[in-house]
Each structure stands twice: as C-alpha cells, then as structure tokens.
C-alpha cells in the first residue's frame, strides 16, 4: 500500500467506465480514479435504468405486479416470480398444490442454469475468450426452448400465479428436460477443459479480486459471491421454502475468496441444479397445478409480510405491507446484485484495471435489477 499512499500526491486521472460499456453488461457507470493502471477509487453511479418498479407495485393490483417481477433480473426471472408468489401466498394463506411446487422448482432451477450459462459465456468474453460464449448459448437455447414451450415466453417469464401455475406441463417438457440434463452433463467436461483448466483463465482469476467473508457481511453480499468467500449460506438450505427440503443437493462453497472461487461456485451450482431437476422429475406427483380456493380479486389481509428466495445471484427478498385493499400499500424489493455491487468500491482498491473488470464480471451484475 506504500505505492498507493505515495501516489496520492502524484498526478491521477479519472476514467469514466460506462454507462455504455460492454464489460458492465448494461447501463452501469463506474467513475474510476486511476494512478496509471492502478485503481485508487471506483465509484459506481446508478440510476440510468431506474423504472420505479416499487412505486409501480403500489399503483396496480396484486396480480398485475407479477409481470414486473420478470423484468427485474431478466436472466433469472422465474426466481423473482417465485419470490413474489410466495409472499402473497404467505399473506393470503394459500396452499400451493404439490405438483405446482415441484414444477416451480424444476422451472426455477432450469432458469438458474440458463442464467449461470449466460454468465459463464459473458464472463469469459470479458476476459477475452469468445468461443465459450457460443457453446454456452447453444445449451442455454435448449433451456429457453423448454421454458418457452411451457411458459410462452423466452426471457421475461410470467409463469407463476398466486396458488399455483399458469398452466401444466406436457410430456414433451418432461422428456425434453431429461434429455437436456443428459446433454449438459456431457458438455460440462468440455467447459472445464476449455475454460476452467485453461492457463490464461487461471492466471487471470487465481488470487485476484479477493473478497473476504467479513466484507460480504459488511455489504450484505449473498449468493455465489458469499459462497466463494467460504460462507455456507443458501436460502434453499438455510430457510427452505417450496419443496427444496425434499431434495438431496449440496451447496458448493469455496474458501479461496478470489474470482476463481466465485467462478467455481457457479459451475458447481449448475451441476447441483441438474441434480435437483432430476430428482424433481422423478418425484413429480400428479394432480392440479392451481389451488382451488384462490379469490378472484386478491386482497391481502392487513399486515407486513416478507419472503426470500435464492435467485441465481443471491438472496432476493420481497417485503409487502398491505392495508387490506386490492393494491399493496408498500412493496420493497431487496435485490442481490445491489449489495454485491456495493462491495466493489472497497474490493477493487489498488487493483489493476484489467483485474478489476474480471472482478466485476465475477460479481455477475444485472443492472436492471440493481436499478429497479
């Protein structure tokens, strides 16, 4: 740090990264105070894609907010659907049929894999490798086809309803999902040989971009960032919701705290999600996909409700306050990447610019979710 201290008196310059920059994956602006190639301070500037989702929630009925949840984190939209459905079901005291719960888990996990695959491609692209992106997109396309055949859309899903699902799946989806599990399992060794074991990748990521567990606690970072720092925390295990407690899966945890650890957590999570889907497909019960006693016009009883789900990027929490009318009184969204980005300023201090961008990539930022 002595170099850093000395540089305070020397000439520094401000480098503007974004709001239109391929490495920020959206309209994120970072004001970098640089000393040559080294970062003295990185200040994220938000607000370029703020759409007042929370305020929108207060101005429309409970059901009408559902499409909005698919537009927060557009890469893992189903987890957000799930979170909102959970909180309203909790408020209304609706029990979801078992088949619907299983299908929720299957579709959410498929969506998580799609999100991680896209991150994998884009992250390697940030580091200068183009080819893995094409393979990742090839696999992701298969998931989107599967999800399109049940939900009707490919990205901004609006599939869950209070008390169940929009519609049931057919046999094609079941066989398609099984075929996909087989396919992705055969592709994972290729990914590891092509990217994980690649010497350039290792040199760029190993022992670079350290984020300690203490820093995660300070800023409230969750998800793969937290698990890459050696903390075993996943809402699916720690506070099981839906039917997650019925499946046998592991939470990947790495103690290295570097960018490589976060990379490995996500790659392992893909495999664990495949395990969950496989078990859910085996156990999938017959029955309805929609609860019987769901009122047509939702009016949640007075009170304060909270639900949290494990989205692809971390803990997504949603808190609603109801005054008993047909619109929420207050709707607060706690999005994971907002917290994950908050630690960037501290974590990137004194880093080389190229390494700091690798660190930013390893945080897996989705800007519309930060600026909701």
């Amino acid at each position, binding site marked *: 740090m002595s170099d850093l201290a000395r540089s305070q008196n020397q000439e520094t310059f401000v480098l503007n990264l974004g709001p239109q920059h391929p490495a920020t994956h959206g309209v994120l602006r970072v004001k970098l105070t640089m000393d040559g190639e080294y970062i003295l301070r990185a200040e994220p500037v938000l607000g370029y894609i703020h759409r007042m989702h929370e305020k929108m929630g207060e101005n*429309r009925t409970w*059901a*009408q*907010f*559902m*499409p*909005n949840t698919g*537009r927060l984190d557009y890469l893992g939209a189903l987890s957000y659907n799930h979170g909102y459905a959970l909180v309203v079901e909790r408020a209304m005291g609706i029990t979801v049929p078992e088949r619907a719960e299983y299908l929720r888990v299957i579709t959410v996990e498929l969506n998580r894999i799609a999100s991680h695959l896209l991150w994998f491609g884009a992250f390697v692209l940030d580091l200068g490798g183009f*080819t893995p992106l094409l*393979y990742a997109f*090839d696999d992701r*396309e298969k998931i989107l*086809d599967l999800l*399109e*055949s*049940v*939900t*009707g*859309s490919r990205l*901004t899903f*609006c599939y869950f309803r209070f008390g169940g699902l*929009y*519609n049931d799946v057919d046999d094609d989806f079941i066989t398609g999902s099984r075929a996909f599990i087989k396919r992705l399992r055969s592709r994972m060794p*290729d990914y590891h*040989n*092509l*990217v994980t*074991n*690649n*010497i*350039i990748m290792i040199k760029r990521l190993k022992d670079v971009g350290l984020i300690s567990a203490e820093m995660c606690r300070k800023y409230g970072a969750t998800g793969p960032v937290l698990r890459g720092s050696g903390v075993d925390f996943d809402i699916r295990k720690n506070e099981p919701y839906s039917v997650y407690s019925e499946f046998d899966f592991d939470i990947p945890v790495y103690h290295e705290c570097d960018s490589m650890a976060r990379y490995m957590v996500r790659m392992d999570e893909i495999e664990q999600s495949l395990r969950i889907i496989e078990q859910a497909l085996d156990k999938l019960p017959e029955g309805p996909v929609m609860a019987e006693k769901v009122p047509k016009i939702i009016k949640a009883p007075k009170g304060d409700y909270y639900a949290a789900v494990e989205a692809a990027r971390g803990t997504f929490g949603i808190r609603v306050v109801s005054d008993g009318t047909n619109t929420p009184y207050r709707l607060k969204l706690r999005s994971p990447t907002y917290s994950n980005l908050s630690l960037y300023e501290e974590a990137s201090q004194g880093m080389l610019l190229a390494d700091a961008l690798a660190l930013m990539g390893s945080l897996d930022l989705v800007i519309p979710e930060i600026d909701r």
Partner: protein
Amino acid sequence: MSGYFKELFSGTKSLAVGLGITFRYMVKPVVTLQYPHESLQMTPRFRGHIELIPNEETGEPNCVVCGMCQKACPSNCISLAGEKVDGVKGKVLTKYILNFTTCSLCGMCVESCKFNAITFSKEYNLAGPSREAYVFDLKKRLEDKKQ
C-alpha cells in the same frame, strides 16, 4: 526454475486441449439458423400479441364487450367499445384497439377472458416505421383475415 518449466508445459497442454475441443466442434453440425431465409415454428403456447377469435358459425368476434381484459391489463393497453344491436343478446363489438407499444405480453387479458374471445397470435416478425404502426385495430385485422 523447474516449477517454471512445469507450468510452461502444463499451460501449453491446457491450451492444446482447449484447441482440440474447438476443432471437434468445428466439424460438428451447425446449430444456428439462417434467419431471414429459414424461420422457426413457434410453440403452441408462444405468447405473441393478442388477436380476436371469430365465432365458428357467424365469423363475428366472440367478444361480448365485458371489459374484463381491459381491467386485467397492467399497462392499460387495451381499449374496446361495443353497441347494442337489435336481435343480438348482449353487446356487439365495434372497436378493439391494442396499443402494442406498452404491452408486456403477460397474458393477463387472455386469462381473464371467460368468453373465449382473445388468444395469442404466433406473430413474432414485427417491424414498423412508426409508433402508430403498433396500435393494432384487432377488429379490422380479423376482418382482413377473413377476406
């Protein structure tokens, strides 16, 4: 020093393995589609913009102008009007305008319809020169389709 050469060797090997994978995929069949020349068939549940369903017998829209779709829409993009016609039970649809610029394809309108009057189209090749090109007159579309 030996560590340096060891790493040099293992590093070069890892690059060769990666290259081997890309070469393997190079000779595999193409997975992409030459889009304007070929296009995909949409799945039955694909949610395009909505369209009116005609009555099987009369060919007129099934819609009875109850306005449930209008109420269900989160973005207020549906506006419709109807009138009373002698000899017909209920109202007859005169105008059904969908402002597709604000539609988010959530499907709340189709779900709320109890008269089997609207459905999703399978259209996804949408391009237009102006904003007005996306204000769809669905009744007119249905009539054009009939001819």
